[in-house]
């Protein structure tokens, strides 16, 4: 199943390193960091949808969803921009007649944005594995909360 770049939003520190790493590797940044009311930040990049709307609307069959995920054939692309319109995340862009989107830095072990993230907020994973990590962390917190609390007024671990 296809992987995608996901973000643990509780860790993102809005440093823009992902954007600049992507810009260096791919000329234009395919990930964009949005700061929301100075209280949180969200990196947005292609979600590698499994029923990609960009491919659904593509009239020239330039975009196809195959076994390895979304495939793009620039030869067949007419530059009609329907994919740009259809993408619900605004992560497909047409530059010089070619559609650009995150391709997970093909040929690299880890996408540049993930490798560079100083806070470890970005990760590249299969959709099925995301839930597991979050569940494990949540379960641990619940158990910790239920465990007998540290007695007040005294130091712990002494």
């Amino acid at each position, binding site marked *: 199943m296809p992987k995608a770049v996901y973000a643990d939003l509780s*860790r993102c*520190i*809005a*440093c*823009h*390193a992902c*954007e*600049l*790493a992507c*810009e*260096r590797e791919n000329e234009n940044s395919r990930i964009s960091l949005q700061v929301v009311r*100075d*209280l*949180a*930040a969200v990196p947005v990049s292609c979600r590698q949808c499994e029923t990609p709307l960009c491919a659904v609307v593509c009239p020239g069959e330039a975009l196809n969803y195959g076994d390895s995920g979304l495939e793009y054939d620039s030869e067949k692309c007419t530059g009609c921009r329907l994919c740009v319109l259809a993408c619900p995340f605004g992560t497909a862009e047409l530059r010089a007649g070619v559609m650009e989107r995150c391709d997970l830095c093909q040929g690299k072990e880890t996408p540049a944005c993930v*490798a*560079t*993230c*100083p*806070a*470890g907020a970005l990760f590249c994973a299969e959709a099925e594995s995301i839930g597991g990590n979050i569940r494990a*962390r949540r379960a641990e917190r619940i158990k*910790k909360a239920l465990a007998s609390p540290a007695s007040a*007024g*005294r*130091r*712990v*671990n*002494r």
Partner: protein
Amino acid sequence: MEEKNPQPTICPYCSLGCGFYLKLEAGKAAGIRYMPEHPVNEGSLCPKGNTVLEVLNHPDRLKYPLKKTETGWERIEWEEALDLAAAKLKGSLEEYGPDSLAFLGSAKCSNEENYIFQKIARLLGTNNVDNCARLCHASTLTGLGKTLGTGAMTNPISDLACSECIFVIGSNFAENHPAVSRRVLEAKEKGAFVIVADPRMTPTSWLADLSLRLVPGTDVALLNGMMHVIVSEGLVDREFARERTKGFAELENVLQRYDPETVSRITGIPSAEIIKAARAYARAGTAAIVYSMGITQHISGTDNVTACADLALICGHIGKKGAGILPLRGQNNVQGACDMGALSEFFPGYGKVGDPEAAGRMQALWGAKKLPESPGLTATEIVGAAGKGKIKTLYVMGEDLVNSHPDSSRVKQALENLDFLVVQDIFMNDTAEYADLVLPAASFAEKEGSFTSTERRVQWLEPALMPPGEARADLEILFRLAEKLGLDFPYRDAGEVLEEISAAVPAYGGIAKERLKKDFGLIWPCPDAGHTGTPVLHTDSFMTPDGLARLVPVEHRSPAETPGPDYPFLLTTGRTVLHYNAGSMSRRCKSLLKREAELYVEIHPADARTMEIREGNKLVLESRRGSTKATARLTERVSPGVLFLPFHFPGTNVLTADALDREAKIPEFKVSACRIRRG
């Protein structure tokens, strides 16, 4: 030059010393590969680090020595340039005496370069040698020096991961030292409690469990308030205070006046939050204090640092893994430049100027007849003295005084007043515009040498590229200048200079080039060749003469300038994630500039409403020193009545005042009074 591709290197920006690889193609830097095995950044890199290629390959790089003539800059030969520099230095020396010379070293240059730089200054007979540490962490040296015995970070950054409580005060590490965040988050995953005290709401505050928004300049009050709670609730580590410190009784006396209600009135933080923070810090098994320029850049900078040390000491949170005091320094080699004695009052290894024993040691090592005996002028005082005509010739290695010193207009006047100014840099900056001679230097990737990061990690940097044009490594320039000055230096390369450094600086005793090349360097103190370095300081005793730490009581003092009817706003300055210090590197990166193009001022929406200011309006900011233009950015990151300006663009320091801390002589960049109007 050893041929390695990709070539391992160290980031030239902040003080963390992050590692990465440069991919080379046909003698040019063509790409970056991350270094997951590096112990500090574990492969990550901040936005500035990601754009170093743009700095290395920039067309603006200085390529030839330039001399100012009546018609403009004239390209000259190295021989002529160095002859001129040497003649002017000697001329001043003979005519006005050694104290008419001044030297500003660079926290961006290697240990070897700073060592040679200060050696030249001192052999010429002056202690007027300083570096930009004066502007960021001079108060760390004085504050931690008098309490713990040494002004350096006590624990490595990776230790934060095993802290149970992290108290961050006056540091916005998420923006300025982004890789620290991964350690803090690691600790948080294990359940650590994070407290962030900052007048602004920053991305660092996003990581906090408790965020304290204090009035700028009230740090001592907050720290004393926390200590008051700790003492009155019996949370003091009595055993530690009794056996390893001195002066608890005096401290307790002073703390009595700082009950939470009083402190709450001064700092603007609810007393319940002060109590909560104090309890969380004191009760944790291991707790660390992380601070930065929000603490140091005040007229009470030394006191602020001292209060941090007191807090850690009464709770016994020092000298073990996961605890300690972590001042996050600014530049990539600011720790090293200080260790090397590029400071007006210290010889290499922090031997005090004026102490005959320290001077004797240096004299013997250098084979000098006589060394100057009284402390020289600090970076800020050099500018003042130049303004008064006492300094005739100034040699600046890799610094932009105009944009980094307070009160830019006075700095410019002072520079104009000089007889001769030499600037040695990689780019033409605003200071170089005033120079009579500009020498093109090599950037980090084009030279070899050792660099000491904020966690005292000494790493060896190997050259990956050739400098552009006729630019030369700073060390080579200094060697040739020394020769012209008639100083007899026996070294041929950085490795040999490091050998002398090992003899001069006790903490570097066992540090040698070959050892540094392995395993990401060594953490000083490393006194002998068999020693593997000391990541955690003060485990058994402090570096004071008797091995005991001093608890020094400090009192809250108001900043030098407070808002009043004429200047109603409190202006504070700081850094942002996309730019770096005076900006001579980061403002040349197109990709960074695209995202942060010009000087902006953060203003609270409520203030903006009353003054009818909208997002993006051009504002004129005025202080008693001057005025500057900036674009309004409406945000609740600042409190009402407070303005924030980043200092990466020309203009910010036109407004700041040069009020100095008594002991450290650090200017108060963090508080000045100011007014605004629509421009």
